């Protein structure tokens, strides 16, 4: 429950002294070193996907877990980030770094503008509005010829040359993605232990009470929404650059935000470890089911069933259960 997530570790200790800071650093290092040391390309590929899921889930958590606002269409940030990055690189020859950062900035701005409009809505209406935005953007891009319409945009293989050729580029992209993932984790943690995070949690508990107590709710919500868009946009830029191909149906796939939401709930909304562990396990499950013909989409059935169980009996997810059994973990694993 969000109440448990509230009681995080000692908020007065300087950040470098808190164990969780180093736990995150450990995870990031593990991601970075494991495939590199073993020179294992397969491992790298599956960890890349895990990193994408972790990024999406952690950033979704900022809205879903902290403020309680259900962003069903969060994938729109990922897709738009991908499109802006690929477009700038293919049509205007921008270098990767510039294109990715521009994508992040543009999408955050977009989120801020739209957020101000739809964050006045509560509960289910907000959730539906986020779906509406995703679908509207998808339908629009499908008709927008400068961005390739429904056929999408292709990147020529030469695009990997500035990075040293395709094989090396894939490694560079991987490390960058791990970086984005790491930033997402630190961002979640940083916000959670800050005054801003306190305000968001208050909104999640009881928005009207929070407003009466002086929390500037419209501003806080809009800011959270905009911030939650930035890193997924970066991830989108990197991911679609690597795929050298982007089309609306893949970029704005509502199924992916669905999975991110399931991951956050399964892992434990409002926590940071929850979405991370959940995303990793979920990606492993998906990878295993990928090649099975009948069960290739079975991860949806399994996660659907798990989600139902969680919602009915265990709303705190995995971390909620862990905190229940070992309350001392609350101080260490956030």
């Amino acid at each position, binding site marked *: 429950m969000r109440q448990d997530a509230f009681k995080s570790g000692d908020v007065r200790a300087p950040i470098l002294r808190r164990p969780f800071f180093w736990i995150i650093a450990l995870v990031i290092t593990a991601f970075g070193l494991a495939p590199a040391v073993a020179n294992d390309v397969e491992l790298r590929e599956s960890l890349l996907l895990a990193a994408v899921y972790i990024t999406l889930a952690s950033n979704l958590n900022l809205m879903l877990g902290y403020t309680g606002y259900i962003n069903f269409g969060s994938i729109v940030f990922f897709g738009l980030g991908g499109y802006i990055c690929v477009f700038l690189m293919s049509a205007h020859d921008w270098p990767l770094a510039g294109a990715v950062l521009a994508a992040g900035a543009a999408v955050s701005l977009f989120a801020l503008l739209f957020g101000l409009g739809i964050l006045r809505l509560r509960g289910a209406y907000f959730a539906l509005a986020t779906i509406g935005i995703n679908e509207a953007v998808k339908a629009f891009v499908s008709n927008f010829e400068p961005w390739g319409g429904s*056929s*999408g945009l292709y990147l020529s*293989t*030469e695009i990997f040359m500035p990075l040293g050729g*395709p094989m090396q580029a894939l490694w560079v992209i991987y490390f960058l993605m791990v970086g984005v993932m790491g930033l997402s984790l630190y961002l979640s943690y940083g916000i959670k232990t800050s005054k801003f995070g306190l305000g968001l949690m208050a909104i999640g508990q009881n928005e009207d009470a929070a407003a009466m107590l002086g929390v500037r709710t419209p501003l806080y919500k809009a800011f959270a929404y905009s911030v939650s868009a930035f890193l997924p946009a970066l991830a989108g830029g990197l991911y679609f650059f690597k*795929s050298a191909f982007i089309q609306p149906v893949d970029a704005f796939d509502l199924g992916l935000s669905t999975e991110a939401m399931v991951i956050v709930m399964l892992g434990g909304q409002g926590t940071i470890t929850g979405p991370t562990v959940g995303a990793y396990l979920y990606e492993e499950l998906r990878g295993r089911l990928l090649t099975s013909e009948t069960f290739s989409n079975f991860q949806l059935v399994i996660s659907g069933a798990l989600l139902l169980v969680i919602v009915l009996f265990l709303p705190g997810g995995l971390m909620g259960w862990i905190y229940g059994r070992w309350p001392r973990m609350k101080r260490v694993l956030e």
Partner: protein
Amino acid sequence: MWRDELNAAGGIKAGNQRYKVRFVTYDDQSQGGRVQQLYTRLILQDKAQFLFSPYSSGLAATAAVISEQYGKLMLVMGGAEPKIFELSNKYLFQGITSADHYLSGAVEALRSRNPHARVALVYSDDPFSKAVALATRDQAREAGFTLVLDESYAPTTTDFSPIINKIITSKADALLGGGHYPDGATLARQLYDQKANLQWVTLLVAPGNQEFARLGPAALGITVPSQWEIQASYKPQFGPPAAKFAKAFEEKFKIAADYHSASGYTGGALLQHAIETAGSIDTDKVAAALNTMDVTTFFGHIKFATDAKHHGLQIAHEMVLAQWQMKNGSLVREVVWPTAARTADILNRMQ
């Protein structure tokens, strides 16, 4: 079938070695994201040495990214869009006619019946159909037709009534377009239900499938550009002649052979021929063999473009135009164009 026949005969002869062929296949469920993951898996985990592309131009493009990243040779028998070959590839080869020549035969055939036709170009919004439409637009104008409607529809469309109403409003004589099987078949059915009364209909892909006959009266008179028909009379330099292939296929799989199965078989045959010519299974040597290839199989004449801008594009193979007609009480596909290859005259559609 190619694999089974080949292995039964002892495998591919490359230099002094004989190699049997083993397939590893996955279902991509027509999703681009899966395609990339699965091809990466094929290369890294399953250690595939040669690749065949997925079916559809969009998916072939995503797969090509992976095959080029890892330097593996891929034969594209299911992707006709030329764009894939303009992205600086080295190991991609297209074994079927490319999209920009798909409807040129239909345009010529239509011109022979109605030089001043009012044409509606209605096509699916996917890479392949868009590429076909792009070329057909120019070909239609050069032929002297009036383009009265030019529109695309989402590939997942199931309700064609708005667009059919527009076709009727435009008073078109002829319809060129379509996309793949699901939308093509649905469009054909709804054209019939709404009595669109077009004198000429050419749809891509869908009518080339035997299933299309299930539409009954809705299928009558519809023409389709085909990569190959059983009645085709090419004299092969290697491999079986058309009739023999068709008979063996029907015996083995209990369904009639069509251009999809023919192109699949040919993909294997071309790879085999290239490996045998190169005398090795080294990717670069086989690629070199494919680059110099200029052959005729039962499927037709095959030659690949070798310039850097279009590497791998198919430049020799040609389409025929087939039409669904009634013969002895049942629906069959007859070749109606080019006149040299035809097995029946073009039927005028009447409803």
